Every structure is written in C-alpha cells, then in structure tokens.
C-alpha cells in the first residue's frame, strides 16, 4: 500500500524536476541490481536444494530408508539406523531443553518485572541471565561440542553416547527455546493476566491455565525450530556422539545421526550418491519443518487479528 503510494509521489515529482530524470535512471539501475540480488538468493537456493534433491533423489528409495548401514567405511547399506538415531537424539535433547527453556522464559518474562522492584540481587541475576542467553546463542557449535566432550563424555564418564550428545545439544538449543517462548509470552495480551488475577487466581494458576495455553503455538514454534537445529547439527555430535552406526539400545550407547552419516559418507567413502541421498532426506525434513513453522505463524497472526 505504502509502496504504491510513494511511487506515485515519486512519479509526480519526476514530471516536475529535470534533475530527477537522471535520479530516476540511477534508481532504475539500483533497483534492477536489488532485484538481481533477490533473484540470486532464490537461484542459490534452487541450485543447492535442486542439485541435492535431484542427485540425491536418485539414491533415495525404500531400501535405502529401511536398511541399516553396513560394511564399515565402505558406504554400503542404507540409512535406517541413522534416521532412528536422529529421532532419538531429537527427542532426548528436547526432553531436556524444553522444560528448562520454557520455565526460564516464563520466569524472565512473567516474574522479572515484579522481582526487579523488590530485590537488587534478583534484578542483577535476571540481567545476567538475559546476557547469558544471548551469549549462548552466539557460541559456535564446536565449542558446545568441546564442552560436552570434556564435561559429559570424559568427566562425568557418560562416554560417547546419546546422553552426552543430547546434554550438549540441549545447551545448544536452549537459547532458541527461551527466546521464542519469551516472544510468545510477550504476545499474550496483558488483559488475559489481569482478568484471571482479578478473578482470584494465583499467579501460577493464571500462567498455567491462561497464559501458557495462549502462548502455546509460539512455544511449539520454538520447539520445532530446535528440532531443525538438532537435525542439522553436526559439529557438536561429531565430538560427543561417537559415530557408531548401530542402532542405539540405551541412552548410554553411541550413535550416528543423519547429518553425521552424510559427513562420513562424503568424507570417508566415495558413496557420494548415498551422501546426496542422505542430504535429500535432510533437506526434505528441514523443508517440512519450515512449512509447519510458517503454518503455525500464519495461524497465529490470523488468531491475533481475530482477537483484535
């Protein structure tokens, strides 16, 4: 709307001023360039995804998806166990990270306001906590890997296992969950809270029965985002998960996720076709995740509009 209006204004001015003609030509040049950049971005996406999907699609079949890898580093077999391990790891990581992340966000948004009035200590802690979340979000994944390696793998003697990897992974996705939950909570209108409190509910009753359900779609978005993060992550699990492609039977077993398997296939074997196939499976997963997130956020904005 505004864009159209402003271009009308621009046009009107062009007719009046001579100098604006050259300005307009300059604008045309730069606008074409910006269009080009947008186009290039889409082209890169099509190139990367298209190539992986087309090349990988050839290798993806029912057999690849349902047989376990075998033959050591020869790249034989399928990817079934790595798919299962990926889901195990995703589940375990989120089992650890979600309660922590959501509770942290609830505290930082819902309680921080009242606390900061009462106690200097709490106010400082909240400031530090916010700073820490931001710091965590910026730490490169290999550092989480190193941390998981030294603390969970060796010091706590969990070994290269699903447990070590999911603990390290939980640290990795914690800021994502906290930030998205915070945003979801902030989007819940204050009237909800006041209404509930006015009816005599305690703060926790208000939170658990009114605010959290209202914020649920946003929280779920954060969780799904984290699922994507865990599926795509390699560096952390490269140094904490061990890399055995056998199906883990307990959380103390080592394993190999799809992304890790892709790395091993591409680097250690010449099974580039299977690597591409694994890549295609990954890309499809990420695509689905993005789709779901977009659906939720569309529904969310539609819901907000209705409320208003």
């Amino acid at each position, binding site marked *: 709307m505004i864009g159209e209006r402003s271009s009308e204004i621009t046009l009107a001015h062009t007719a009046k001023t001579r100098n604006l003609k050259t300005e307009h030509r300059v604008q045309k040049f730069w606008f074409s360039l910006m269009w080009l950049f947008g186009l290039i971005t889409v082209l890169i996406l099509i190139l990367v995804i298209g190539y992986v999907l087309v090349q990988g699609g050839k290798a993806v079949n029912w057999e690849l998806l349902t047989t376990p890898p*075998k033959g050591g580093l020869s790249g034989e077999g399928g990817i079934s166990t790595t798919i299962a391990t990926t889901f195990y790891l995703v589940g375990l990581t989120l089992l650890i990270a979600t309660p922590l992340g959501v509770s942290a966000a609830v505290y930082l948004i819902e309680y921080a306001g009242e606390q900061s009035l009462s106690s200097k200590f709490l106010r400082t802690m909240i400031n530090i906590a916010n700073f820490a979340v931001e710091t965590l979000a910026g730490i490169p994944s290999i550092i989480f890997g190193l941390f998981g390696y030294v603390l969970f793998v060796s010091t706590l*003697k969990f070994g290269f296992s699903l447990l070590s990897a999911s603990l390290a992974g939980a640290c990795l996705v914690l800021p994502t969950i906290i930030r998205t939950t915070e945003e979801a909570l902030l989007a819940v209108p204050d009237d909800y809270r006041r209404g509930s409190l006015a009816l005599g509910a305690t703060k926790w009753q208000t939170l658990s029965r009114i605010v959290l359900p209202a914020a649920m779609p946003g929280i779920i978005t954060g969780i799904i985002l984290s699922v994507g993060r865990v599926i795509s992550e390699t560096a952390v699990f490269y140094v904490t998960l061990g890399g055995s492609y056998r199906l883990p039977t307990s959380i103390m077993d080592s394993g190999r996720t799809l992304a890790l398997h892709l790395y091993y296939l591409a680097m250690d074997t010449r099974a580039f076709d299977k690597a591409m196939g694994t890549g295609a499976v990954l890309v499809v997963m990420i695509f689905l995740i993005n789709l779901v997130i977009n659906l939720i956020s569309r529904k969310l904005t539609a819901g907000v509009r209705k409320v208003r």
Partner: protein
Amino acid sequence: MKYAKKSLLVVLSGLMCLALIAACGSKSTPTPAAPVAEATEAPKVTEATEAPQGESAISLSGSTTVQPLAEKLAEAFMAANAGVRIDVQGGGSSVGVKAAGEGTSDIGMASRDVKDTEMTEFPNLQVFVIARDGIAIVAHPEVPVGDLTVDQVRDIFSGKTTNWKDVGGEDQSIILVSREEGSGTRAAFEEMVMGKETVIAATAILQPSNGSVRTTVSTTPYSIGYLSFGYLDESVKALSIGGVAPTEPNAADGTYPIVRPLNMLTNGEPTGAVKQFLDFILSEAGQKMVVEDGYIAVK
C-alpha cells in the same frame, strides 16, 4: 515467607554448585604416571552398557585403519554369537592405546607399534597382532607415473620435489594428501618413509581418515597420498615402490618395504567375550576375513 524463599534459593543454587564441583572433583586427582594426559581423559569411551542377562557387550576404539576390519569381524562374530554386542568406534591409534590402558574400552586398536612411553604408562597392556598391513603410495588414476623409489617418495612428501616431471610424469605440480597428526598410518609412514629428520610439507592437504584420503586422491588430479592396503581399490592408482607392487604377497614375504602391524590391545589378559572375540579374529575364519580385506594374515 521472604526468608523462606531466599533460603530455598540459596539451597538450590548451592546444590547446583555442588553438582558442578562434584563433576570437577571426580577428576581433580591426576595420576602421577600421566599428569598431562589426565587432563582430557580417554576420548572414545564406550562405557559397556548394562547388558541384559546372558548378554555381553564389547567396546572397541582406536585406529581408523583397523576400524573397518574390526567392524566386519564384529558383524561376523555377532552373527555367530547372538548374545554378544560389539561397538566399534574410531579415534585413532593413540586413542586406542589410551582407551585400552585406562579401561574405557575393552579393546584398543592401534595401527602402529605401541610406543615405549605408552608401555611404561600402561604396563599391563597385552598386544595382539591381528594382521599386518602395508602402506601403499597412491596417486590419482590419471597420473602416468607407476613406480617411485622410497627416496623419491620422501622428496615428494617433504616438498623437495614439487613437480611430476621430476619423477617421470607430466609438467604438473604435485598435490600432497596426508593424514592428521596422531594418525597411526601417518606415524607409520613417517617412521618408515620420511625418517626422523624430514617432515611432511605443510602444504599437504590433511584429511582426518584413510577413507577421506582415498576420496580426496581419487577426485583430485595430480594428487598423491598414502593409504592402508585395506583401502586400496580401483578409484586410486597404487604405485609400486622400487619395482615392487603393493600387494599382499609382496608385503607378506618382505619385499614390499612399507609394512606395519595392526594391533588389538587389552589391559591385562582378556577374559570372557573379549577373549572369544580375539580368538575368533586369530582363528582361520577370522584370518580369512583379514586377507579378504587386503591385509596380511598373521597365521
């Protein structure tokens, strides 16, 4: 109420700190024998999981050279012994020695001799030579050169010879592919080819495993690298050394010059399933698999 809240907080944060301190404390007493090594503990640890009754689990870690062979042996052994579960992990020879010595893995794998310093650190190590392995010098399949002397190989890898024309090939610069520090294959290659004085040129592409060296050499024209015999296939050209082809018979009879042992290590005499697995490897069936994979049988 306020007091109660605060004290709860103090208790809670205290508990957390305690958990952390306990975590640090559990390893803050370094063993005098290995004050430096202590700092990181053994990497590839596979804590043997509490297996259901009647089952046993064996964990292996170490050399990526031995790893694929061990995985195949393990698959065969597990097929014959349903109750046993074997986990094979990489990590490199140094890790294999350490994991076996510290007991974090039941069996350590090493594709080189155990160093004297390692023997003094872990005096109970039992060494089982499960196979011998040649190290082949490999080049991209389109490289016309088919034979090099050990001296030529040394000059190439030290960066003294940089062009294929100096060793009878085309006028193209040589692209070196080597392994990481800590790799048993690299250690064996350095020991047997480079000698003590010369080092591998810094310009070499470094890859973290035998497999990735093979992939890189097979896809990079004018490249040269070195590989365990077990990894040789049609994708790379194995060069003969001083006229001797890198084949299993030539390595077995000692005419091929670059041969090293593949070891499995245990801390103390092996027992139970671990002993059974080692016996299986050294049995006729096991050694047949060793040969099938391009290594040299020890029996």
